[in-house]
């Protein structure tokens, strides 16, 4: 069961994160923390017309939260706001599914590796932390691209 949580894809993203490091210019920034464990992440979003031109981030945290940030970057960097919305919806739905949803690799790419995380309620927050920070940063950059994220 633990192997489903720590899939190779997740460990790879954790050890070799994609797109990590804060970059300028950006239109919006958001810093989110998980108060129970001290994980932190900052996201920046630069928008060019309808395109998410640059998504940059930095943070400290567990493998799940850091890999999730890397996967988010992979999935949404350079996409249009319209393309990003269903990806976000699919990821959030997967995380809230308690393992009952079969993820669509066409939509979620490496994000399908997080299907195992949904079975660990204590870790769902870790996986969603970057997505919440991104959502806020995007909103501050002037775009609303995501569904409501509920972690309670």
């Amino acid at each position, binding site marked *: *069961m*633990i192997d489903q*949580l*720590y899939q190779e894809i997740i*460990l790879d993203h954790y050890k070799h994160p994609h797109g990590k490091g804060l970059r300028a210019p950006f239109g919006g920034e958001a810093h989110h923390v998980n108060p*129970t*464990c*001290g*994980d*932190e992440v900052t996201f920046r979003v630069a928008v060019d017309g309808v395109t998410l031109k640059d998504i940059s981030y930095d943070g*400290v*945290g*567990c*493998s*799940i939260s*850091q890999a999730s940030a890397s996967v988010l970057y992979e999935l949404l960097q350079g996409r249009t706001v319209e393309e990003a919305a269903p990806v976000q919806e699919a990821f959030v739905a997967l995380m809230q599914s308690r393992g009952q949803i079969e993820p669509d690799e066409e939509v979620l790419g490496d994000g399908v590796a997080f299907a195992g995380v949904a079975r*660990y309620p204590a*870790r769902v927050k*870790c996986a969603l932390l970057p997505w919440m920070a991104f959502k806020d940063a995007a909103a501050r950059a002037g775009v609303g691209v995501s569904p409501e994220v509920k972690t309670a």
Partner: protein
Amino acid sequence: MTFDVARVRADFPILSREVNGHPLVYLDSANTSQKPRQVLDAMRAHQEQYNGNVSRSVHTLGTESTTAYEDARAKIAAFIGAPSPDEVVFTKNSTEAINLVAYTSADFLKLGPGDEIVVSEMEHHSNLVPWQLLCQRTGATLRWFGVTDEGRLDESSLGELVNERTKLVSIVHMSNILGTINDPARIIARAHEVGALVMLDCSQSVPHLPLDVVELGADFIAFTGHKMLGPTGIGVLWGRAALLEAMPPFLAGGSTIETVTMGGTTFAPPPARFEGGTPPITEAIGLGAAVDYLTALGMENIHRHEQEITAYALKALADVPGLRVFGPGTPEGRGGTVSFEVEGVHPHDVGQILDDLGVEVRVGHHCARPVCARFGVPAMTRASFYLYTTTDEIDALARGLEQVRKVFA
């Protein structure tokens, strides 16, 4: 007498369960302890046989219930060497006990700008945040002792830090994250020299060490039932009788009063003055049973057992490559709470893999974020021991940490 850990374990039903297909290895007693059958039985007997409200009934059940509740208070007073049971105030937990003093002290210490409250960088948030809020409300200044690289209280500036402006010092007796046992003698002497009061957060010490409040010399101590084999929902504030007498009520209500008219109220003497509303009666009786259990085994024996386990654990952890222990590296002046990091692996991941092997540890900032910041880490992994911990369980922890290193190699 030798300490028979197998016999102790037989009293704790939960210790025979499995977690994720492995025997439970419970190393999170600093978070909450497990409960022996004797405590569970005492609580059940109260509910099944003599449940009634306390201090307000003339009927038999109410009288029996009141007797048991007050007996529990007397047992706890004896357990900590309090001169009188009236110095033992039941609260919900340590946090409420600390808040009781923090809230009422604005009044009875007449705090204002220019006054100082002193805490330390080693505090649990519950012995830090109430004092921050008190200072915000009153204009008093919050100051603190630092922590040395070895995880001990830095008392080098004691004479300056505790001075004639200091009104109250509140310090942790045993750190919930570093395991450090502070010797508060010098701080108490200095505080009393300048006329300041001293409160000790004994949440981690009362469950594990023989403790006598008269010898200790502090003015207040706080501790909680669920970390010492008792249930949740019951904690204790001990205070010197003369101080409790001088303090106003905190959470006022039924039981706290002497006479009430529409025009005003006079208040009952302590401890009733501070126990507004129906108290956690069953929980108090459970805590009394926990104190009986600990007393029968002997706190000296329990402490010695934990010292042996701690020495064994520190040695076992030193053999794990890439592992760094925070806090004192030897059992001297420390208790059985050991926090550490595994190089390159976040504590959340350490805790998850250990749990998969049935080993339950705590991960995170342990409600002591300033300590994590002091040591430059966002979080720590913590293993904490108690009277039922065995060397086999330490071996299971060490094996689990090997597995952690394998997964994240």
